[in-house]
């Protein structure tokens, strides 16, 4: 992380005011570093111009891996490595293998996707996040603006955020 990063931090009380503020300030050319909220605000990711998450694709690929591994395992074990006839039934046929295949698909899809989520979001148990305002997990929505990424001055950004309904505007340096 670079040192000496200066941020202007706008605090919003209401999610609808926040949503409009993000849309309007971005129209006016403000580059927002990130918005921190205590709960998911619907439409905020579109307002910030974020693309849809590709995690569903990861889940699908992990799920398919689970399906293939489960089928391979069962057919190899009971069909090839040690074929056994139990109860006069075929030693390797698809229908009785479906339950285990389904469970392994779900297991790998769920764990793979959650693992991908942690890696993509750079989340680890021992890591402290960069916190702009501790109230962002309580009841405030926090808009962080990186001064270096914007042409506007500190005062201009501050005035813009206030005009859009920010209840307070602070500075934060890392």
């Amino acid at each position, binding site marked *: 992380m670079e040192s000496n990063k200066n941020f202007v931090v706008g605090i919003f009380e*209401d*999610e*609808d005011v926040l949503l409009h503020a993000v849309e309007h300030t971005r129209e006016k050319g403000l580059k927002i570093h*990130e*918005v*921190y*909220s*205590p*709960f*998911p*605000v619907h439409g*905020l*990711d579109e307002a*910030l111009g*974020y693309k*849809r*998450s590709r*995690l*569903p694709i990861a*889940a699908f690929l992990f799920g398919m891996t689970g399906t293939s591994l489960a089928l391979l*395992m*069962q057919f190899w*074990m*009971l069909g090839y*490595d*040690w074929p*056994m006839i*139990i*109860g006069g039934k075929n030693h390797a046929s698809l229908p*009785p*293998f479906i*339950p*285990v295949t*389904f*469970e392994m698909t*779900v*297991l790998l*899809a*769920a*764990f793979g*996707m*959650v693992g991908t*989520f942690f890696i*993509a*979001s750079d*989340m*680890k*148990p*021992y*890591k*402290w*996040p*960069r*916190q702009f305002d*501790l*109230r*962002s*997990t*309580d*009841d405030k929505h926090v808009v962080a603006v990186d001064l270096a990424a914007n042409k506007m001055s500190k005062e201009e950004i501050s005035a813009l955020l206030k005009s859009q309904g920010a209840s307070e505007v602070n500075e934060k340096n890392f």
Partner: protein
Amino acid sequence: MQVTSSIREPLITGGKTVHDVSEDISRQVEGKPTQLWWIAMGISLTLFAFGFYCLCTLLWEGVGVWGLNKTVGWAWDITNFVWWVGIGHAGTLISAILLLFRQKWRMSINRAAEAMTIFAVICAATFPFAHMGRLWLGFYWVFPLPNTWGSLWANFNSPLLWDVFAISTYFSVSLVFWYMGLIPDFAVIRDRAVRQGHQLRANIYNFLSFGWDGAAKTWSRYESVALILAGLSTPLVLSVHTIVSMDFATSVVPGWHATIFPPYFVAGAIFSGFAMVLTLLLITRKVFKLEDYITIYHVELMNIIIIVTGSIVGIAYITEFFIAWYGQVPAEQYAFYNRMQGPYWWAYWSMMTCNVISPQLFWFKKIRTNLVATFVLSIIVNIGMWFERFVIIVTSIHRDYVPSSWSMFHPTLYDAGEYIFTFGLFFTAFLLFAKFFPVINMAEVKSIIKSSSEQKH
């Protein structure tokens, strides 16, 4: 600025603000445990210790300490196993299926219900393991480990092995789903701890929250993870009790060999699960003063699910009888005649009274919105569903094809002890959860404060 819909009842009462939600839910995590909590913990640990003694005796002496005999090889152990697994189903139904149906009332109850699921599945799993007798051999009996370790490959044609995969997947995925929901709430407690100057608590909860930051990008990813986990859990939860029912249905025992079993078991599981959710939540809301979050309206909606699933179960019982009569197979007909009029008639009629008749009382709005009545009926349903499994398992096998081997099942202290063990385990785990983890999903409840909370007057 609050907007309350005039046609729907508010989900959160008492004019709560977003900040109040953090306060109310974090309070019991931050404070010292109450005296009531210590008393409850003491009782749970006593049950646990007594049960653990019984479990150790069983492992030391062998399964012979149970009342099982040559005819009745499955009795309380498998009854308790199916009962606990069934109870778990409500948690997943609330968190996954109701999420897919966009039912916002799930938000105040899903955390505790999912915790119940996880602990119930752990309790369930102890029974098949104990039933193996030689627990240490269980690993290559149930897991696909190779022949050179002392056994052939596991038999993938067996529903008992499907069960191993179903239950362990169900447990793992439910655990992940539950934990994902906890992550933003751990961050709430972390940030409050930083502001209150509790560095140790801040570090612990930051560790638990994986360094959650609440960024819009993270939330966006998080929501798609939650949606897909719900989509995966929905068929998963239906598969689990389907496979449990196949433990019976794929056999040729009269009374078990029925194609109706999977949907009938799933409905029964949700029925018993909701009863247990109500039993637990009615106590939790009282002890932690959560009346504004878990309202009468929530209780009423859960009671409606109990009427629906209870009636499905009732229809399933009648259908089984009809098919036994209509199918004209003497052994099958006898099995059902024996259930109703045989030596276990009392178990059968307890099941019918508790599961089919008693939930019909919830048709009356006065009863389904009455907390005492709900609490009593929820326990009656729990008892009834235990009897259902007992009736299915024991009455079907105690009089088998050879009349000379007909016998009764007489439970011993150790049969009861194992059941007590799981109760001790369940309540100890639930009490620890309720003390150290936020019992209500704060992030989700905060997101509906504007739309579904009662306005301050």
